[in-house]
């Protein structure tokens, strides 16, 4: 029977974890890695609950949970996006020294492009720094196979192994052969050994030496050695490929009819690069072209610099995604055949925007109204799109909204008229990395207003639960953590919850919060309204308010410029606003936005949510 199924790369990795009896899998959501954990949960529904699956509050916590499982002898895995690995880098560096027991895979998904990340950083460099091996899959199918390979490698050498897919692997779908999944019983067996698991600096030196030995052995491990793809070819030149760039290159070479003309090697384990392979390249070829994403990790390890062409020689671009058409040009240049340069059209893509009816838009509108000239720091999430409304001045990394606000205050504090500072941060981001910053702001008595945009979910990455949701990845009920109590626990005395759809109330509270903060340190507003997409998916949109535009509208465009709901369309000819009935989610907030009161509820008695 045809046991092929269409699987996304992330689903393929999840399936691989299941087929290999992974007992604990943890993660924090982040594109392009999020679906690994959610598909595990989805696959598991029909099975025995032998695997523990959970979203953790951040990547560091996720890592440490999975790692402990490993040293208790179980097969475990932690998955995240590449910048998440920055957050988990502290335990990563130490776990490499101490090593693992049960197979332990660190899945860090990179995002060359970047498509939806702050950086294009190459997780393989993190593997190099931590001194752990890393595998680089070229397709969903290989990603699944590499889970097996990674567990074998990890258990053989008692070392954490990184699996590094990239966006195109994570989000491609392919027909994949499924293997059986076996039910198993979790049998933890932690063997106490404080010299190793609680090593003092003195012993860490020995662990470091041991790690070096392991790596040296791994760079001769046959199962992960580079593969020669076309054995019959003979040339003074060769091409070395890895990851998704390998797939693109293979296709390009086939289409250019070069398969018989130039030797191609595919590296499965970019670090540590197999020693024999390095010698073989240097002994056999005059010139070696290395095509990999995103940094020249393989390239760097090939010692004879004169023979190597790649990122460091600018033969391959150092930034951005290596699209197949770019690879085609590089390959043509390397073998000396003409290629037509590819022209991409200049037509610009549509800018993403906050959804129609998104509660964040209402919050941003109110903030802009109250502090039109203030400094507005923000954070990572859907609400980064507040950029379009001029309500986001900075976005650095998870949790930075609050600490950056603090820094701006310190920078301006001796000015005669320091600016008002408002930080916006999502609920999930607040849990992830905002809390320490808030504590710091309280201790330093910094006069800022922090607006926690609480939409009860991690919207940007596909609506995963937050610690306040009280629901697990499989939909199971969990404990909840109350944001307001948490904020008060951090020492904040001014903390109010408000529904951003109630614009007047939010505006008033913002003014009060600002006034309070001037003498007392940070004040916090929790702007709480569930993510609309989440509600729509769950079919539980509450109290819709259908709206209409009346004759009072003169097409001044205020609502478009300052509020920018995509369902509001300006008809230049008629000098009037129209409402796109397909897009409108009937939040009714625009009623409160129009200064001429020309947008009205079709339900005459209702002016806004406040009248409900």
């Amino acid at each position, binding site marked *: 029977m*045809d046991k*092929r*199924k*269409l699987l996304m790369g992330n689903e393929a990795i999840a399936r691989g974890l299941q087929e290999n009896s992974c007992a604990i899998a943890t993660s924090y959501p982040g*594109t*392009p890695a999020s679906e690994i954990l959610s598909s595990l949960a989805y696959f598991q529904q029909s099975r025995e609950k032998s695997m523990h699956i959970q979203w953790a509050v951040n990547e560091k916590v996720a890592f440490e949970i999975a790692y402990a499982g490993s040293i208790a002898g179980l097969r475990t895995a932690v998955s995240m996006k590449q910048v998440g690995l920055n957050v988990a880098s502290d335990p990563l560096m130490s776990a490499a020294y101490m090593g693992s027991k049960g197979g332990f895979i660190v899945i860090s998904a990179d995002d060359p492009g970047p*498509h*939806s990340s702050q950086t294009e950083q190459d997780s393989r460099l993190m593997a190099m720094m931590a001194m752990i091996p890393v595998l680089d899959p*070229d*397709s969903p199918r290989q990603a699944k196979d590499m889970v097996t390979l990674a567990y074998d490698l990890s258990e053989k050498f008692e070392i954490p192994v990184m699996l590094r897919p990239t*966006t*195109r692997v994570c*989000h*491609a*779908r*392919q*027909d994949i052969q499924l293997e059986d999944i076996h039910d198993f019983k979790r049998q933890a067996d932690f063997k106490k050994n404080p010299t190793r698991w609680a090593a003092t600096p003195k012993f860490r030196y020995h662990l470091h030496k041991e790690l070096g030995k392991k790596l040296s052995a791994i760079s001769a491990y046959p199962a992960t050695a580079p593969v020669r793809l076309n054995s019959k070819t003979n040339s003074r030149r060769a091409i070395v490929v890895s990851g*998704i760039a*390998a*797939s*693109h290159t*293979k*296709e*390009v070479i*086939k289409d250019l009819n070069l398969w018989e003309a130039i030797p191609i090697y595919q590296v499965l384990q970019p670090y540590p690069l197999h020693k024999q392979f390095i010698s073989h390249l240097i002994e056999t070829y005059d010139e070696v072209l290395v095509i990999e994403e995103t940094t020249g990790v393989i390239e760097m390890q090939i010692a004879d610099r004169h023979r190597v062409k790649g990122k460091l020689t600018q033969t391959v671009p150092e930034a951005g995604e290596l*699209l*197949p*058409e770019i690879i*085609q040009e590089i390959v043509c240049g390397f073998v000396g055949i003409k290629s037509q340069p*590819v*022209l*991409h*059209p200049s*037509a610009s*893509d*549509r*800018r*993403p*925007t*906050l*959804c129609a009816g998104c509660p964040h838009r209402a919050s941003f509108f109110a903030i802009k109204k109250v502090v039109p000239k203030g400094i507005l720091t923000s954070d990572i999430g*859907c609400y980064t*799109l507040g950029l379009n409304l001029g309500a986001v001045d900075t976005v650095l990394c998870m949790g930075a909204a609050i600490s950056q606000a603090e820094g701006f205050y310190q920078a301006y504090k001796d000015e005669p008229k320091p600016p008002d500072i408002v930080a916006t941060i999502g609920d999930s981001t607040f849990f992830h990395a905002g809390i320490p910053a808030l504590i710091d702001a309280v201790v330093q008595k910094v006069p800022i207003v922090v607006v926690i945009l609480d939409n009860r979910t991690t919207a*940007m990455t596909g609506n995963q639960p937050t610690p306040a949701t009280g629901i697990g990845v499989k939909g199971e009920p969990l404990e909840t953590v109350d944001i307001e109590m948490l904020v008060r626990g951090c020492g904040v005395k001014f903390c109010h919850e408000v529904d951003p759809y109630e614009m007047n109330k939010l505006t008033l509270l913002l003014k009060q919060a600002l006034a309070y903060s001037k003498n007392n340190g940070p004040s916090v507003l929790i702007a709480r309204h569930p993510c609309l997409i989440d509600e729509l998916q769950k079919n539980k949109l509450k109290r819709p308010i259908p709206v209409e535009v009346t004759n009072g509208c003169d097409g001044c465009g205020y609502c478009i410029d300052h509020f920018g709901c*995509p369902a509001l369309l300006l008809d230049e000819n008629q000098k009037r606003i129209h409402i796109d009935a*397909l897009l409108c989610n009937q939040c009714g907030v625009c009623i409160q936005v129009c200064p001429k009161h020309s947008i009205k509820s079709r339900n005459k008695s209702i002016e806004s949510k406040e009248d409900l």
Partner: protein
Amino acid sequence: MSQAMTHQIVISGVGGQGILFITRLLAEAAILKGMSVFTSETHGMAQRGGTVVSHLKIGNFYSPLIRPLSADGLLALKAENFDQHGYFLRKGAWIVVNSDYDLKPKYDGPLFSVNADHLARKIGNPKAVNLILLGFALGVIPKISEAKRGMFCSVEDIKTVLQNRRPKENMTTSAKEKLDASLKAIEAGYNFF
């Protein structure tokens, strides 16, 4: 690789139009017919109303991405996608586009357009623009001669895929209604020509 056995199709539109859904239907139809398949899609910010494009490659390929000047067809859920993604098309490739105005003068290959938004409203399923356009494509593309390579699957294959998505036995009423609405949308597009 043998040209006759491969198909490369670009499907594009904006977030929320269900691009990924029809890409999946086509991909599953390919598996149903015993072929290998790759799809690739943009995620993330694109879901917030930005441009979404997915690549569908049927047959023996290594890479999930389509290179410029290589696609056999473009399924455009917005007229503007034609300008944005036309560069993927090889010479003579087909275009099926959701548009309320005539795009023929802009393209010298086989081009078929339908106002799928209008049709969707007419059948009382305004969100089914994607399925209507897919149905329409399955209706018109076989009209291009086989030599120029048409579609790899039929409207019946897509219907089978839709029906196989959920086990028939314990289907809830709402799931049944959804399925019927989807089949109806496919039909409406298919019969439009």
